[in-house]
Structure formats: C-alpha cells, structure tokens
C-alpha cells in the first residue's frame, strides 16, 4: 500500500513516515500543498495523510481541488485545531477521516490502514482468536466451549479489538468507536473495561489474549 504524507512540519513528517514504513507502507512525503497536488495527480496512491495547516495552499484547498478533478483517493485530514466544526468542514470537503493533533501514532497508523480497507473486506460473522470466538450475529462469546456473558459495552469493545487481531488499538480510537466519545475524558475507563474483560476471558484460560502495550493501547492476540 502506497501512502502520501503531506505535512510541513519536518519532524512530524519524519516520525509519521517512519511509523507507516514500520507497518509495511510505502511512503512519499511532501511539505506543501502545491507539491502534494502535483504528486497526487501524477501517482496513484492508496491513501493520503493531509495536514490542514500548510504554507501556501492549505490542506482543505488541496482536498477540494483533488475532489474537483475526480480524484477519489481516500484522505485522512490532520489538524492542530481539532474541533467539531473543522471536522465537519473537512468531511464535507471530501475527507474520509479526520485526526486532531496531537495524535497518538498508533491511532494514525490504524486510521491509515482503515483508509485502505474502506469499502473492501467482507466482515466475517464469527471472529476468532485462538480458542476464543465471538459471534457477531448472536453476540455470543465462547472460550474453550464455555459461554461467556458480556454486557453490551464489553461486547462492543471486544468486537472492535477482534476486528483487527494482532494490531494495536489506541485508547482514543477505542473511546471513539466503542463509547462514541469525541473527547479524551481523562479517565481510565478503557483500562477498567479491559481489566474486567481479562477477568472474563483470560483469567481461567491459557494462553492470555488481551495485552496492554504500555502508553500506547491494547491488542488481542495469542502470543504476548
């Protein structure tokens, strides 16, 4: 998957590029809007990470220009502003997703990955990690033949983690997708739910499936 990163701040551009490369993406970097337009019209990218604040032509203008010229490459907008109004403005201009700064890299990587998946990949009705299964139709969870009772919230959290097994899910993305919070409540809500889920699906079983990536997020997988 080939991604274009448009970010005028050199250091930010650099660690975004590193993080995406580490996940196996091919990454091109531009530092201003005009270069970005030229690059995007010359090369077919699978996704564009676009900062709103750019010298000269700003991100929203680049985005509008792209959409006007019928370029449908999925776009993830980055903004230091991060308020609902800009989110709406960005999405109206044709962005596929929006991430306010300062962001966690793990969130950025997860969202870029989701850009590539948009519209593709059929959802399997049964999610499975090791001997743990989650039926997304009956909403039943089983491990080693034992049925596990889940509350609605616990189910949503598990489903979200199991949709991308082996991949780290950031705390902010979890709050947004599972709780519908568009703000960081500054509580350890996610941590206490993960703890509760551990008691339910990991305490009496081996191997352990739910893992904490300290400072970053959570991942569900067989090996630690």
């Amino acid at each position, binding site marked *: 998957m080939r991604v274009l990163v448009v970010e005028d701040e050199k250091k930010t551009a650099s660690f975004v590029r590193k993080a995406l490369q580490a996940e196996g993406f091919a990454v091109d970097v531009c530092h201003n809007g005009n270069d970005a337009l030229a690059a995007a019209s010359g090369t077919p990218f699978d996704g564009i990470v676009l900062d709103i604040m750019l010298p000269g032509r700003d991100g929203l203008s680049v985005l509008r220009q792209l959409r006007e010229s019928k370029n449908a490459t999925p776009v993830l907008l980055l903004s230091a502003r991060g308020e609902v109004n800009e989110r709406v403005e960005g999405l109206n201009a044709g962005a596929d997703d929006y991430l306010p*700064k300062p962001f966690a890299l793990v969130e950025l990587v997860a969202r870029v990955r989701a850009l590539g998946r948009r519209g593709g990949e059929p959802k399997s009705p049964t999610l499975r990690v090791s001997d743990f299964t989650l039926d997304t139709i009956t909403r039943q969870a089983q491990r080693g033949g034992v049925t596990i009772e889940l509350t609605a919230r616990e189910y949503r959290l598990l489903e979200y983690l199991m949709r991308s097994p082996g991949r780290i899910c950031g705390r902010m993305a979890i709050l947004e997708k599972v709780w519908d919070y568009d703000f960081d409540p500054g509580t350890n809500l996610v941590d206490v739910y993960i703890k509760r889920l551990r008691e339910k699906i990991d305490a009496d079983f081996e191997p352990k499936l739910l893992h904490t990536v300290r400072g970053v997020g959570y991942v569900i997988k067989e090996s630690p």
Partner: protein
Amino acid sequence: MTIRTRMTFWYVGTLLFSGLVIAGLSIKELHERHHRREERGESWEDVVGIFCGVGIPAALLSIGGGWWLMRKALAPIAMLTDAAERVNERNLREQLPRSGNGDELDRLAEVLNRMTARLNDSFTRIREFTLHASHELKTPLTILCGETETELRNESLTPAQRDHCASELDELRRLTRIVDSLTLLAKADAGLITLTLAPVRLDELVRDTLADTQMLARASGVRVELGECEELTVRGDPHRLRQLLLNLADNGVKYNQPEGLITMSLRRSDEEAIFSIANTGPGIPAESLPRVFDRFFRCDPAHSHDAEGCGLGLSIAQWIVAAHNGTIQIDSVQSELTTVTVRLPLLKPEAGRT
C-alpha cells in the same frame, strides 16, 4: 446645559411658584379678614389659622414638587447605574445608553463606555493569548508524543528504559489533555464553537453514564446507584452532554471516600430536566464553593496530585450547561454529601413523557 444650571432653574422656578401661591393666597385672605375684623372687631389670632389653612397645602405642594423634581433630575443616574450593573465580561461590547445632550451624565456615560471598551480589549487579548498559546503548544506536543511513541517501539530498549519512556508518554498525554481542555475553553470564550443540536434522550445518556461510572468506581469500592430516572428529551449536543455527565460522575468517583456512595437521579420539574448526582466524599468547604467553577481551581492544593484531574473539568461542565441554556449548581455539606444539580430546558413539555 449642565445639570447644575438645569437644577438651579428648576429649583428657583418651583420656589418662586410656591412662594407666589402662598403670598397671593395669604394677602387675599388677610385683606378679607382685615375688612371683616374692622366690621366685627375680631382679634389677630385667626391669622395663625389662615397660615395653617393656606401654608400647609402650599408646603405639601413644594414637597411634592421637590420630590418630582429630584426624581426627574436623578432618573438618568438611575438608568446609568442599572446599565452599569448589567456589565460583565461577556457583554463588554454593549454600550451604555447616552442622551447625547452633552451634560455631565452624558459625559459620564461616554467615559464609562470608553472604560468598558478598554476592558473589552484586555479581555479579548487574554482570550486570544490563551487560544494562540494552546494552539502553538500543539505542534511541539505532537512531535514529542510522536517521537516518544516511536522510541517506545524500539525493540532494543531495556525494560527500565521502556518504563521510563512509557511514563514520559503518560505525562505527555496528560499535558495534551490539559492543552485540549484549554483550547476548548478558549474557543468557547471566543464563541468559536457551534454545538450540533439534536433531540437527545437524557435518560439513556444517564443510564450509559451509570454503567461506566459503576466500572470506574469498582476499584475504590464506591457504590453507584440510580434513583428516579424519567424519560426526558432535551435539545442538545449528544457528545457534549455525554462529556458533561461523565465529567461529573468521574468527579464523584475521584473525590469520594473508599466504600462511599454515588447517587444519580433524573427527574422533571415543569419545563426542566433536573439531573442530580451526589457523592459522600469529604465535601467542599463553604468558602471554596463560589470558586469551584473557576479554571484550575482546586479546593485543596495539597491533594492536587491525588486525583488525576487538571482543574478544568468543572469549568468545562459549566460551559456545556450554559451552552444548553441550563444552570449548574453545587451544594456541599462537609463530610456528608456533595450534590451537583444540572437543570436543562426540556425539548417540549409533551415530548418528555411517553
């Protein structure tokens, strides 16, 4: 014409008028009496009676006239006082009414207007400073967070280094939350935030928050109970209302005592939804109550690190409530019960009940 000359004219006019009335009536009476006395030989004592009969009404007339006069003269001052009373940091751009006739009061109004304009400039500068500062902090924070996170993924780190790095990242996230909260408040002050309003079932949000609060409270053994919870709909921004409820509930957990109790309820009173949440924490000293909504205010600075908050939560809560045309109030009986009451206007009187 200045007030002094104006008042002098009025005063002289009234005095002259009442003097003339008194003099005229007295002379007329005296003249008649004089004739009658000459005819019947009566004494001069009646003159006192005449003065009482004519003088008292005349005096009453002067008092009435004087009262009316002063009221008329002072009316512009009363109006200025009322207008100045209404001035607060949010309506500094409004001007005091001016008569435009160039008298002292008109000049006073002009001076007051210039003063509020200068205050308004200062407030605007402070707001802009906060807005720019919180915005400028975001780029370096993004870089710090990103680089620390990249470092954390470095496989060659020793466990001690990894711990150090993760703890730095935790602090950076905390700083990020503070900056985010500051930005939110600065934007709210500058009127840059538009709420996305929709009908919101408040009882559903309360039940959601209840479930989350019970999870948050498990670690400290705090019980969370829901009393009355009526089906009520308000017009509001669901994200902000969620933020408000979780914010208040989280405070209830953080500032509670171990094994304490949190009680929530949602009920209806006339055209309002009343959400209340009470906790059995140590409470807020009476002298701190008026300041709890102030930014970065903490009741007990010594304990500021026990709880993770940054002192902006209640300011944000207050803003969310005000943006929904509601009110928020905190009552505290020390060592017994601290209650936060939020009142929000209902969507429609009938829409609340089903």
